[in-house]
């Protein structure tokens, strides 16, 4: 080839290097998209606040009881006795209204006292609150009829921080957020670049592909710091969610998770040409994990046969590791199995994605 004078690259400040320019562009595109800001930073907080309030630990609900009224004017004796207990809400009503109230769940149990020495409880034993109601109602009526306790019972009440729903929820939301930002952040951006033929245009320059991909990772890391600090900070300040494990283990887990989910995003976007195609594929990948991986409820609820599969999912590993760190104060060694699962997914996704990725 006929060369023009081969001079070394003109020196320039770091700010003008490929990697910093590519990373700056990624961050600019993100912060100039108000919707993306909302979904990444505001939405998880709204969700945590909403669910945290809905499932906050309240004093035990009062048990609602219906007592079937007699033909006479006076309320039945049973009703008077039950109403004396503050844990119950007692309503006296005709038999058919009482059964209707039971059927639609307005009351947990219907009490019918036909004879002086006999009482009938009508309830659905499959309903937990009805079973509780039967025990409470029966206890009150038996004592009022003269039963004496054979055993003295003392009570000691505790509310353990770290065992509440919000404590369970915050690490799950963090895992879900890391998954979403990785898959959407990389996947959508790359498919958008390909769709606009901008990827092709960039490849037509001397741009380094390695630095191009590295810029996505770097911008993810910048965002990651904000995502974790905002969501965890909100949990700690608003709900006093405990942070029992070492912070550096939390940070390490979050960074590893961010790399893993970025790899997943890269893999999803490696061939797709349209936003619709990308959207479908992303939902297909993320939706099962939202349900199976213990974001909103424990994955232990699924049948035992599914557990090995669920444990192998990257989001399960991330959620389990985050929970173990924040709630149980687990050290790095304890969450090593989860971290291994995440690392394997990371390596697998990147290896496959770099093989499949279409630049042109």
């Amino acid at each position, binding site marked *: *080839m006929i060369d023009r004078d081969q001079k070394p690259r003109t020196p320039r400040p770091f700010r003008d290097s*490929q990697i*910093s320019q*590519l990373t700056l562009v990624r961050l600019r595109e993100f912060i100039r998209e108000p919707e993306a800001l909302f979904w990444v930073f505001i939405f998880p907080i709204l969700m945590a606040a909403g669910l945290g309030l809905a499932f906050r630990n309240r004093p035990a609900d009062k048990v609602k009881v219906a007592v079937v009224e007699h033909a006479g004017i006076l309320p039945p004796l049973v009703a008077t006795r039950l109403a004396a207990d503050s844990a119950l809400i007692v309503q006296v009503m005709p038999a058919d209204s009482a059964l209707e109230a039971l059927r639609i769940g307005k009351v947990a149990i219907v009490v019918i006292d036909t004879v002086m020495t006999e009482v009938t409880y009508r309830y659905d034993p499959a309903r937990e609150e009805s079973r509780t109601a039967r025990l409470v109602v029966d206890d009150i009526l038996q004592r009022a009829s003269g039963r004496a306790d054979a055993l003295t019972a003392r009570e000691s009440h505790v509310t353990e921080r770290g065992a509440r729903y919000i404590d369970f929820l915050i690490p799950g939301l963090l895992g879900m957020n890391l998954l979403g930002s990785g898959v959407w952040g990389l996947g959508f951006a790359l498919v958008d670049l390909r769709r606009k*033929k901008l990827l092709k245009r960039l490849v037509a*320059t*001397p741009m380094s592909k390695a630095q191009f991909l590295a810029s996505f990772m770097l911008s993810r890391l910048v965002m990651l710091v904000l995502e974790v600090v905002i969501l965890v900070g909100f949990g700690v300040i608003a709900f006093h969610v405990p942070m029992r494990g070492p912070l550096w283990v939390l940070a390490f887990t979050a960074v590893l998770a961010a790399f893993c989910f970025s790899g997943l995003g890269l893999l999803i976007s490696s061939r797709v040409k349209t936003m619709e195609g990308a959207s479908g594929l992303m939902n297909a990948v993320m939706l099962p994990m939202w349900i199976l991986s213990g974001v909103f409820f424990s994955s232990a609820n699924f049948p035992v046969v599914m557990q090995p599969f669920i444990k192998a999912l990257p989001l399960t590993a991330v959620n389990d590791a985050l929970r173990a760190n924040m709630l149980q104060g687990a050290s790095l060694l304890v969450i090593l199995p989860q971290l291994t699962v995440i690392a394997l997914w990371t390596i697998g996704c990147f290896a496959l994605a770099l093989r499949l990725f279409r630049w*042109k």
Partner: protein
Amino acid sequence: MMSTAPALSVRSLRKAYDDIIAVDGLDVEVRARECFGLLGPNGAGKTTTIEICEGLLDHDGGTVELFGGNWEHDADALRQRIGISLQETQLSEKLSVRETLTLFRSFYDHPKSVVDVVALVQLDEKLNARVGALSGGQKQRLAVACALIGDPELLFLDEPTTGLDPQSRRQLWDVIDRFRASGGSIVLTTHYMDEAERLCDHIAIVDHGKVIARGTPRELIESLGAEQVIEFAAAGHTPFSIEALAKLDGVRAARIDAGTYALQASELHRAVPAVLAFLAANNAALTELRTHSATLEDVFVSLTGRHLRND
């Protein structure tokens, strides 16, 4: 700057997509410091050809050399020396003109300054504007600015003015003129004959993946052997014989296109009276009569029987 070796040399280029042959044995040579045009209708294989030359597509046969190097061995060095504007790139709307050019600038070893390039494409006043706020013509000039920022020796422009208004087209032509005046070589594709005539030193007319004619715009038009074209329509007659029209005094060739007759003529003062006499002899009334200097469009039509643009 460098020797007189061709900036681009393409020999027997072939490319097939599945069972469609897009490029079918195409030869092109672009000398240093010239503007070379690939002129042809949509689907002729122009974009495929230029993207192979840009190293963005693989080819099935033939050779492509840029500055004597090829994409297999010299890709990194070649990327530093060429500038590219693709047909339908959408630059990021959320970045400013300055940010976009600074990004592209970071890829090159010896780039121009953003301020210089912006001045070259007359976007000085839009330096801090978002790309999304630019007009179509301004966006296209920014795309060319991205091609120029690396200070290339060879510029590839694929349909640079398609979809632009006349003023925007002239502004872009000025940019291309300035690049050429500074010593650069250009390969452009277009289906606008006026653009090819205005900009190009040499043209290859491409149809069905082959070069069907080549030369300077002047040579191509002269190859018709007729500098003038007479177009007319007439009412109240059965269709005239094309052979009879072609035999008229001063007429070199004739054809009919959508009810309008087009005659190639070397001397209007002999041909026009002959046409009028022919119409009178056939009892036909003239409804339309136009004459114009022959253009590359006429060259294309005489070669293929079709128009460059089918809209």
